[in-house]
């Protein structure tokens, strides 16, 4: 079976798995929302023609209009298109604190009168970025260490395996929070810390796959041909070992999203005023008795995102498992 047809085959299998497809579509929609967040939820118009100038304030605000009152400009303008949710994620409005969902604020407002929906739309950026970057880092570290341990074996394997074992002894939140507590908070630090603390599963998987493959005949053949170790590792073993690792990485994205929202909830993650789902949840904790909408909607968003990634990972696992021919039953 050549490479292209195999990929095609896997792709077709995922397309036929309705649940995995739903998960994938959800993630694509979420990515689009995140990418166009400032066009969807903003207090500035998307497009406005004002004093014979064509402005796109969501994308670029000219110097002379930095302090401008956009409501005023829209009223005076000849033509304008406003975003569907006309609120900025960070615009404080103390006259509208903790309002329940209504036609003007679909998902209510928070303690500073900010629109919850606008904050959730902008918060999706954080969740997507954390998932992908943190897992990217843990993939690089995990695959590299796992490959070294599995391919070379011997003392290197014992050393790396012991290191993995040590890292797995730390209860995850204790480790992450201990690190976060001593760093200045920041969104990229969270991603790096989550990535550097969650690579153990990937490393173990990669190691196992490499041990399985390194004695295959085609690897022996490659060795006989005098290929360098790095070429054998990255060109010949890795492509054959990566499938189960990618499945685990997909589940890893789900858990990174969870971890970020939990860290932010505890106050050690994304800092205000940056919008994130965990931050709205922590406000929800504060106003639990009076504002049901604060925990409900961001929690639902986290739940659906995690579910979508898990469904996708599940579908990927089924598609890659040659023993399974029927519907998704391996979970």
């Amino acid at each position: 079976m050549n490479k292209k047809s195999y990929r095609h085959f896997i792709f077709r299998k995922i397309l036929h798995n309705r649940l995995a497809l739903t998960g994938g579509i959800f993630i694509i929609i979420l990515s689009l929302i995140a990418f166009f967040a400032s066009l969807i939820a903003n207090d500035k118009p998307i497009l406005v023609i004002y004093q014979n100038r064509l402005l796109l304030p969501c994308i670029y605000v000219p110097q002379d209009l930095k302090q401008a009152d956009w409501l005023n400009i829209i009223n005076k303008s000849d033509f304008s298109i406003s975003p569907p949710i006309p609120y900025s994620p960070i615009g404080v409005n103390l006259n509208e604190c903790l309002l329940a969902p209504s036609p003007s604020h679909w998902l209510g407002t928070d303690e500073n009168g900010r629109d919850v929906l606008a904050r959730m739309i902008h918060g999706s950026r954080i969740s997507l970025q954390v998932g992908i970057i943190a897992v990217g880092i843990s993939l690089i570290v995990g695959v590299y260490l796992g490959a070294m341990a599995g391919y070379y074996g011997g003392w290197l394997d014992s050393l790396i395996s012991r290191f993995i074992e040590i890292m797995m002894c730390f209860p995850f939140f204790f480790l992450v929070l201990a690190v976060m507590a001593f760093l200045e908070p920041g969104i990229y630090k969270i991603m790096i810390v989550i990535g550097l603390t969650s690579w153990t599963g990937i490393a173990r998987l990669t190691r196992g796959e490499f041990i399985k493959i390194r004695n295959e005949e085609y690897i022996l053949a490659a060795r006989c041909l005098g290929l360098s170790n790095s070429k054998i590792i990255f060109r010949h073993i890795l492509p054959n070992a990566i499938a189960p690792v990618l499945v685990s990485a997909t589940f890893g994205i789900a858990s990174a999203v969870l971890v970020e929202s939990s860290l932010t909830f505890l106050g050690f993650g994304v800092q205000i005023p940056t919008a994130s789902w965990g931050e709205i949840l922590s406000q929800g904790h504060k106003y639990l008795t009076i504002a049901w909408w604060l925990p409900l909607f961001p929690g639902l968003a986290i739940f659906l995102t995690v579910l979508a990634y898990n469904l996708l990972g599940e579908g990927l696992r089924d598609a890659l498992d040659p023993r399974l021919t029927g519907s998704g039953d391996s979970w």
Partner: protein
Amino acid sequence: MWSYILRRVLLAIPTFIGISLITFFIMHLAPGDPATMALQGDSIGKGMSAANIEQMKETLGLNDALPVQYFRWMKRLVCLDLGESLKDHRKVTEKIWEALPNTLLLNLLALIVVYIVSLPLGVFSAEKQNTFFDKSITTALFILYAIPVIWLALLLIMLFYVKLNWFPASGIQSLDSEYMRWWPWLFDRLKHMILPLVCFSYAGFAVISRYVRSSMLEVIRQDYIRTARAKGLSEHKVIYKHALSNALIPIVTLLGLELPGLLGGSVIIEQIFSWPGLGWLFFDALNSRDYTVIMGLTVFTSILVLLSTLLSDILYAVVDPRIHYE
């Protein structure tokens, strides 16, 4: 078997050293140093002069070379001395000792609940593989598994405390519990425990029952099950006597593997429910940058995990005579 156990125990020693090294490394990773960090997190510390901070660093021994500091810390660690809290100057071990029973109580109860629910679920799912029952259980657990614990905790509090007022939302007992007779006292404790317990256990249902299911399915395919069936044993006996007892062997190891998750989760759950356990203590120390407590708890919880994995490995060797150390 004994040599396996001995080797396993000896191997735990380098792991322990590794744990201590990593913890020490984390604490010195911070820009600045623990003393300054601790003082920045402290309201009194803000007014302190640089000279005072310097003096404090000197008393804490933070001006020595890192290896010197590490060996001094390690020497005390071996004697079970984790230093004293920067916040209230009480011994860290004493604080941990106070909080430990509360966390262990919840975690062990959660483990019991998880196994009581997941074992039958997993066995039934395997017995009725690919039926409607199996599929709906699988789907329900899959959805349950994706629910963020914070969300569930907040929703439970809103429903059962704010709306229905059935269960309290914080603490381990009511304020007047000291004056209660033992029966109402126990009832009061139980009421406080229900919601955190649900939060601790729901995610485990999915994990453990899936393991039980796949382990059962694996065993059912074996020859000796076919033999048991062939000699005319009832299906009930085949499943519950021959299959189950063998399928349970790998499940034993999971006991040890569940603990890190439970302990890690306790930081969030105990904070939400104000449950005075290890997680709550840790969160409190994080907020005041109390680095001796943070360091002590990080080491302590990971040693707890180390011991539990050790225990489950040994247990595995005891229940499965096929295990040998390679």
